[in-house]
């Protein structure tokens, strides 16, 4: 009952953000939708393994023979989808979808400004500014988990994990760097999906953090340097940690003591999402809570924030919708004909 309720809420809320200036116009067929993404599509057939966010976003659109699109070309930098004329639900409006991969935030902004891209990823820090400027944006439910992942080699790992978690000023990061997008969370599964995320503590306790971190050795700290989202958060964490007496030394090693990572909630079903994250879901919320806590402890994780996926849309893109976990629904998207 609870699961059904939460999925209904998600289905409704995922449609709220899309802003349409002229929704009364009739859809048209044809056209090529150009999408810029920073990541790369790896595989659309991952089985039970958790999919990359981009893979998951596309998976439903190109199911073999029954999806609205089929893969026409798969090149290192570009994936081209063509409309599946024989799709069971009917041919999609778009003729083609070009997905340009590996585009940096600056590239995407330039492509969008120059009309070379119809859909781009919008950094959360820019969302409020974009909205103030009247831009069209579409956001998913919080489905990205920003978390610290500790390497399980140090003897004082749990103590340092606790100290660092207590040292981080999450509200300041949420308000300033994340521009109040998403939510502060100590859980892996977002509140909209599990309903118990608020039970995981998120309060800052600097004095206790100092006490726990007293005379501790420096920790090596790494994150994906290519991610414009992670860099400011990581820098702020370094500052907060220094205030608590914890020295974080920047590292590029994958074996760093602490890594700032993004985890994807790949399903709008809590149990499935937890399973895809590596947990062993329980039958009821209490067991789910225990399973998630067990998963966090066993993988030495410290979730910090739950963030949505946000896309900025060109004025001619219509009926763009994202699922609660950020997956695209391209079969209903149509493009206005270019003005003469």
């Amino acid at each position, binding site marked *: 009952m609870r699961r059904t309720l939460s999925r209904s809420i998600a289905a409704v809320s995922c449609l709220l953000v899309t802003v349409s200036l002229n929704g009364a116009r009739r859809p048209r067929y044809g056209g090529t939708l150009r999408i810029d993404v920073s990541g790369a599509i790896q595989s659309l057939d991952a089985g039970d393994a958790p999919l990359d966010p981009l893979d998951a976003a596309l998976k439903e659109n190109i199911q073999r023979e029954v999806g609205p699109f089929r893969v026409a070309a798969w090149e290192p930098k570009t994936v081209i989808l063509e409309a599946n004329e024989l799709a069971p639900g009917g041919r999609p409006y778009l003729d083609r979808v070009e997905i340009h991969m590996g585009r940096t935030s600056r590239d995407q902004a330039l492509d969008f400004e120059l009309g070379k891209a119809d859909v781009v990823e919008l950094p959360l820090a820019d969302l*409020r500014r974009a909205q103030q400027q009247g831009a069209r944006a579409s956001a998913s439910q919080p489905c990205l988990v920003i978390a610290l992942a500790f390497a399980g080699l140090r003897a004082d790992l749990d103590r340092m994990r606790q100290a660092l978690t207590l040292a981080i*000023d999450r509200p300041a990061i949420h*308000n*300033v*760097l994340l*521009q109040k997008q998403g939510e502060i969370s100590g859980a892996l599964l977002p509140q909209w999906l599990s309903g118990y995320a608020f039970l995981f503590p998120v309060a800052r306790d600097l004095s206790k953090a100092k006490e726990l971190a007293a005379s501790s050795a420096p920790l090596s700290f790494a994150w994906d340097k290519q991610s414009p989202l992670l860099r400011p958060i990581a820098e702020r964490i370094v*500052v907060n940690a220094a205030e608590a007496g914890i020295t974080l030394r920047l590292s590029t090693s994958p074996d760093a003591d602490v890594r700032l990572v993004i985890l994807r909630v790949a399903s709008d079903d809590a149990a499935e999402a937890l399973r895809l994250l590596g947990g062993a879901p329980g039958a009821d919320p209490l067991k789910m809570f225990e399973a998630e806590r067990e998963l966090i402890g066993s993988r030495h994780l410290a979730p910090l924030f739950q963030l949505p996926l946000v896309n900025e849309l060109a004025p001619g893109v219509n009926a763009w919708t994202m699922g609660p976990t950020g997956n695209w629904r391209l079969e209903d998207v149509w493009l206005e004909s270019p003005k003469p």
Partner: protein
Amino acid sequence: MTFRTRLLAVSSLTVAGAVALVSGVVSVAARRAFDRIAEERRKAVVDQFQREVESGYRDVEQRVQRAASVESILQIAVEANRPQPDFSAFVDEARSQADAQALDFLDILQPDLTIISSASEPARYGYRSDWLIARGDAASSEPFLTIIPTDAASTVAFAAARTVSAGDKSVIVVGARKLDPAFLASLGTAPGVRPMLWLASGGVIGTSGPVASSPELNLLVEALRRTRREASATVRWSSDDPASAESVVALPLVHRDSLLGALLVGTSLREQVLLERNIVWTGIGVAGGGILLGVLMGYWTTLRVTRPVARLVSGVQSVAGGDWSARVDVQSRDEIGKLASAFNKMTEQLIEQRDRAIQAERVAAWRELARRLAHELKNPLFPLQITIENLQRAREQHPDEFDEVFRESTGTLLAELQNLKTIVGQFSDFAKMPQPEFQTVNASALVREVLKLFEAQFQAQSGADARPRIEPVLDLAESGVEISADPLQLSRALRNLVLNAMDAMPEGGTLRLRTESADGMVRIQVGDSGQGLSEEECARLFTPYYTTKRHGTGLGLAIVQSVVSDHHGRISVSGEPGRGATFTMELPARRDA
């Protein structure tokens, strides 16, 4: 040392000293000129860099002023006046303004110095800014120096602050440009001038990055720390390369009594060092050439000056060697020429005087010979005359006693005639002294042979009818007494000396004969223990015809002296009245002996 060598040495030393003095004066003058130029250049550079620093202050002040004047900063100030200000929308504003104004650092602060937005450390929003040295800096309208901590190291920066008010509350915009290699490179520098920056937090940077330190630089920094005033030093960056030296002037960067660092202006001394080195080597070359030329000129001059002197010396030596006909050929009319003329005139006069002296000496000698002959012959002639007169008187007055008188008188006549014959023989011997025929002679052996001639007399002296005894004592060297001599003449001279010694001891005594070698001479001594000689007698003893004996002719020792002189030796006598006399012959020893 010869006069020529001495003159050459004096002239060379004079030239060398003069050249060294000139070189030293030139070197000192050049160094002073270089120092003066370096000082003027240093002042110019210092003035330029002080203007550059002042320009840096003003530049930052203007940039911060422009950053604080933009609309977005005013919006932040407006937000600060709200009951619950939310600065989250402005977190990137500092970076935007820093980029726009080309500032390395720009912070937007609340009045309590809490960071609203930071260009250099965007993650530090909400924390207090830590690169304002004093709270007063934020309110100051004047630009100031500050230290900004960075991830790598602290850096010194020009900074300025502006307060933007919009209501009761305000925000502070603080911007800075760090003094880094880029800043140093932006300074307009003349060729050979190198700006550097010393940071009190440690390290020296140049336009290309960190600069290796040096002991001189450390001393300069220490002086700077003590005085906090402009200081300068010569810094040699490489101990192996003197041309790496720089004249470094340190301009302290002080803010609120804190020494934050110093702008180091290094002026390369490479050109000066190389120029000084060239001057030194040129000086050495010129001095060496000058000295060499001076020595050659001195040698030539010395030759010119000393050649007449050498001729004079040669002439004098010839005259001293007996060649009175020597002449000095000097054409000059200077003092040397006059001296040579005087010398030639003097030798001519000497020859004239010598000829006159010889003539006079010959006359005197003939007179003396006549006198001696008259004297020596008169003594035997008088007894002859008396004896003959006695014979005549006995024949006339006492015929019966004539036979006895005749017998006695003829004995007397024969004795006196023998005496006359002896006298004539001695004169004949003195006149017939031949040239010696030299051969190697052992002086000790010769003494022994001479002594053998007198052994009979020594032994007769020890018999029953003995006369007073004379005891010969020999002290003869066994080696090193070989001489080049005529053995017959030298034997004769020795016999005369032995006879003289025996005559000097009528009461008997000791005859000492001694030979020895010393200083390239062989010494033969004949001594007696007789009545001795006075000082006057010693001085006149070798004068011909001078004798101390009652019946001597005075030619014995003259003959001895003549023999010794012909052997290139000399003879002397020593003695005191009552203590005997000793004759010493000194003859040149054979060099191969």
